[in-house]
């Protein structure tokens, strides 16, 4: 049995929130650079160049990449042979978030849904703990801005809608969102399961390294096709029109009920701030 003190989790959550807010990940940088070299509109190239420069300045001057430093999602995959000690893990995660947002001068965006009163420390984080075999522990953190979260969709398609129904739904979602979710986008898609399962898969898919494709040959093809068709919408960088609307499409699937075909689309803006580490 392996023992992990939850104070380690608090510290790592804090560290990741700070790193993600200020530092553009290497895979995102490479992807934006590739996009810039492929974009053939003047405005599109200007936008992509500015986003890359934004990344450099943010890191150099320790200014957040985007003023919407997001809602925090924390995923903890815990081995069955791990024993946690110390303060309750949920409190430890929220304490890490609190410290990062206060000490890092990040924007506190969490409010009561009805009164709109701000919780003043960006908590609570959305925490998901999953048990896995073995004694490993893996921590994933996502800072999600709401310009893009607001444009996500879940639809309960009928089974007869099939693959074409899924493709149409994804493309409609991207087109209707236009410039609001700050394209170029990373698109997470969950197919199957239930309403909530599809949405959870769509979000979790955003953690996949940019450039990687699904190991499932059919999904891999569908990812390639959707990326191509998303770019053919010509929404373009920031919705100004152009070639590069999507950077990546990541699809996850899960068996569903014979009477249903749930599909969720989670749009992430170009400011993709997520990282996974092993504890």
């Amino acid at each position: 049995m392996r023992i992990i003190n939850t104070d380690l989790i608090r510290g790592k959550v804090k560290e990741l929130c700070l790193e993600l807010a200020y530092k553009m990940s290497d895979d995102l940088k490479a992807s934006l650079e590739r996009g810039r070299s492929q974009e053939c509109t003047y405005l599109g190239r200007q936008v992509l160049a500015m986003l890359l420069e934004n990344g450099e300045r943010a890191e150099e001057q320790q200014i957040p990449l985007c003023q919407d430093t997001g809602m925090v999602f924390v995923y903890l995959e815990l081995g069955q042979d791990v024993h946690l000690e110390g303060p309750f893990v949920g409190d430890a995660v929220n304490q890490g978030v609190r410290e990062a947002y206060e000490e890092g001068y990040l924007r506190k965006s969490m409010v009561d849904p009805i009164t709109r009163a701000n919780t003043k420390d960006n908590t609570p984080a959305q925490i998901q703990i999953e048990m896995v075999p073995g004694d490993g522990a893996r921590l994933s953190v996502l800072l999600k801005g709401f310009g893009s979260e607001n444009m996500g969709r879940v639809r309960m398609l009928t089974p007869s809608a099939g693959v074409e129904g899924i493709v149409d739904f994804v493309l409609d979602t991207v087109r209707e969102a236009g410039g609001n979710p700050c394209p170029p986008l990373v698109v997470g898609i969950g197919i199957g399961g239930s309403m909530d399962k599809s949405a959870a898969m769509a979000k979790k898919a955003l953690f996949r390294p940019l450039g990687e494709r699904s190991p499932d040959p059919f999904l891999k093809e569908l990812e390639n096709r959707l990326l191509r068709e998303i770019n053919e919408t010509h929404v373009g960088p920031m919705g100004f029109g152009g070639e590069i609307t999507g950077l990546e499409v990541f699809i996850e699937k899960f068996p569903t009920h014979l009477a249903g075909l749930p599909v969720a689309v989670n749009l992430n803006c170009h400011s993709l701030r997520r990282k996974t580490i092993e504890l």
Partner: protein
Amino acid sequence: MNYNPIKETKQDDKEEVIRLNLPLTDRQRSSLQAGQMVYLTGTLYTARDQAHLRMLQEIREGKELPIPLSEAGIYYCGPTPARPGNLVGSIGPTTSSRMDKMTVPLLEKGLKLMIGKGKRSPEVVKAIAEQKALYLSAIGGAGALYAGCITAMEPVAYEDLMAEAVYRIEVKDFPAVVSVDSSGNTIF
């Protein structure tokens, strides 16, 4: 969307840079066209959801607004807190469509310039054309870059709203794209 890949490919990156001082004259506004990139220098005011609600309330009550609408450009944003020693934190645009329902009364009261991100409702586009106003898009998610364009910042109203308060900001070479021009043409 007026997107023509073949025409666009021919443009080069040496396109003429348009620099403008704020407030814009009627003539400057009417000469700008959807799709042009401009660099602004001068005064802007920040306002987003809650500040808009309060301004509308003041209009209904016949009170004077805290900002001079006819010369004021409104920048829809909610920055991060500044680090000690810094003027401002990350300060990119927020989604404009959330302000759509509150925009027409401000245009009718003389507002001429708005900056945010994403498209506007047909009602707002129509009112922009009627009032010969202008809507620009700033580059969403480029908050650190925009921080470098701000040379002064002070709160002018609704300070209790914190990040959502109205601030007067001085900007220098602030990049934005004409997205609804004064004839009502849009880039989206």
